[in-house]
């Protein structure tokens, strides 16, 4: 006699909590073969608004943490994810209809990506910053700083790796994130939120919305309290309109990338969402 399974209710992840959409809406997630997997929350513009509030509130703490601390927290995500490999593999096999080996490779790569980016947290500033030899009696230094709140449209054809590849680099410098997960493959995103919630990632640093990117993205693109917009997974949307909306507050924007290499790991993904601050100070001996 087989045991009757206990299905999970997939909710949103906002400000460290797992609320349902304020709209009460859900939508059906089906497997690659069309079988019902779960009902996911269908986030509304008000959920997006709440997520931005939570993300903004978390900026001070996360960007103010030492780089060493952020590195440890991001590494901790990898550790916790490693412990839950089986769960993610199963979820991906169901959702994407791929073999266990392919799903495992995706999970392992995602874990390694956290590790890779974790190591950058206390190094990228040394690579992206400068001591500037100005022609005068001044100490002059340029340091990169997080831009603030980054809204991300995650790659739509990947359950886990695409999401991680977009979210992790934004976090390295101390940004906080509101990410809209893959519309059709959102379940791993919520499972990842459970990992984040138990990995010392402060509440509000990552906020995960599921639902329709086409519906939510315009609200994030035009939101005045969002500093940057990563459209990596927005290739199927009217992303030029999103970029135009983002220009109203001169957001920093990354444009869509397609294919399996979307959001490939690079230092550029970290520095895309930093601001270079240059500080001058007089130098006087007497």
């Amino acid at each position, binding site marked *: 006699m087989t045991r009757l399974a206990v299905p999970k209710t997939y909710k949103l992840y906002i400000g460290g909590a797992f609320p349902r959409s304020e709209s009460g809406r859900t939508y059906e997630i089906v497997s690659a073969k069309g079988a019902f997997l779960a009902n996911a929350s269908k986030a509304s513009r008000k959920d997006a608004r709440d997520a931005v509030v939570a993300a903004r509130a978390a900026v001070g703490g996360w960007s103010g943490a030492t780089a060493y601390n952020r590195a440890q927290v991001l590494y901790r995500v990898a550790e916790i994810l490693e412990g839950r490999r089986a769960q993610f593999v199963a979820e991906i096999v169901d959702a994407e209809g791929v073999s266990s080996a392919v799903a495992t490779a995706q999970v392992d790569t995602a874990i390694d990506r956290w590790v890779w980016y974790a190591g950058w947290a206390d190094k990228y500033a040394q690579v992206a910053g400068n001591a500037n030899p100005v022609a*005068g*009696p*001044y100490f002059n230094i340029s340091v990169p700083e997080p831009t603030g709140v980054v809204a991300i449209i995650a790659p739509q054809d990947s359950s886990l790796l695409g999401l991680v590849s977009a979210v992790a680099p934004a976090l390295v410098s101390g940004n906080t994130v509101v990410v809209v997960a893959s519309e059709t493959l959102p379940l791993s995103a919520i499972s990842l939120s459970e990992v984040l919630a138990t990995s010392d990632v402060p509440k509000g640093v990552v906020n995960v919305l599921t639902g329709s990117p086409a519906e939510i993205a315009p609200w994030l693109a035009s939101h005045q309290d969002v500093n940057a917009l990563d459209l990596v997974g927005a290739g199927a949307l009217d992303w030029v309109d999103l970029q135009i909306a983002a220009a109203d507050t001169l957001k920093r924007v990354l444009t869509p990338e397609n294919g399996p290499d979307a959001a490939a790991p690079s230092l550029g993904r970290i520095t895309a969402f930093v601001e270079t601050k240059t500080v001058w100070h*007089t*130098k*006087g*001996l*007497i």
Partner: protein
Amino acid sequence: MTGTQIVPGERAIALLGGEANDANLRRYLHGIPGVDAVGLEQRAAGLGTRSIKTTSKAWALDRIIGLIDLTTLEGADTPGKVRSLVAKAVTPDPADPGCPRVAAVCVYGDMVGHAVQALGSAHGDPDQGKIAVAAVATAFPSGRASRSIKLEDTADAVAAGADEIDMVIDRGAFLAGRYGQVYDEIIAVKEACRRADGTSAHLKIILETGELNTYDNVRRASWLGILAGGDFIKTSTGKVAPAATLPVTLLMLEVVRDWHRLSGEKVGVKPAGGIRASKDAIKYLVTVAETVGEEWLTPHLFRFGASSLLNDVLMQRQKMTTGHYAGPDYVTID
């Protein structure tokens, strides 16, 4: 010229709200806002770029002469040398009777009598077109002697007819934080400047900024000198490099301006040593005018302590008259 009627110590007690001891002085002097060296030097450099042309320049050159303390401070000074200096002070340019006289001659204390004698009827208040005699005192230039020697040095010079005493502060005590000692000494010297008739010789306080080294120290020492009752604050002895610089003078002028804002009293400033070119002297005039105002450009509020500056100014005057550049053989050495 007589000194101000300030009772020694009065300024300090009013401001400190208590006795002028090390602790109170330290509290006050270290509470004064600091100086950013880069900003100060930039401001001075900016003032140095002011451009003076023709009429203003002619006026400025004559004014510079009238503000000079023509100085000889050598171990080899003799009565003859002092007489020669005085002759130069009285008649800077024999070819031009319209040339103004300098403000004062500045000599060692033992030469005061010779200077007074040589000046004769020309001796008097520079504000009245006469020439004063200034004496360096207080174990100039090092100031390393006992208090009694310094006071006797001062009293001697005053008795010999000195109108102005250029004293040195005890830099050692200042750098060691014994502000009370520096203060007390200035008060005592000021007292020693008093003549039998109750008037006082004018007291200039040499900070020796080259030894104080930092601008913060210069600012504090300037306040200390003023609080103790100095009529003038003066940059340097001329025996230590760097002597007067434009930034240091600007800084001292800023203190004088602040004191004036606070008390309404006008204290003089004397940059001394190292100012040799008219062009540089004009920068000082600009700095005075823009920092404390033009009314400071009078002998009782601003002086140049200099020796070779005078001849450069005379050459510039000649150039303005003749239209040709002058040469050193066409001005007299003293």
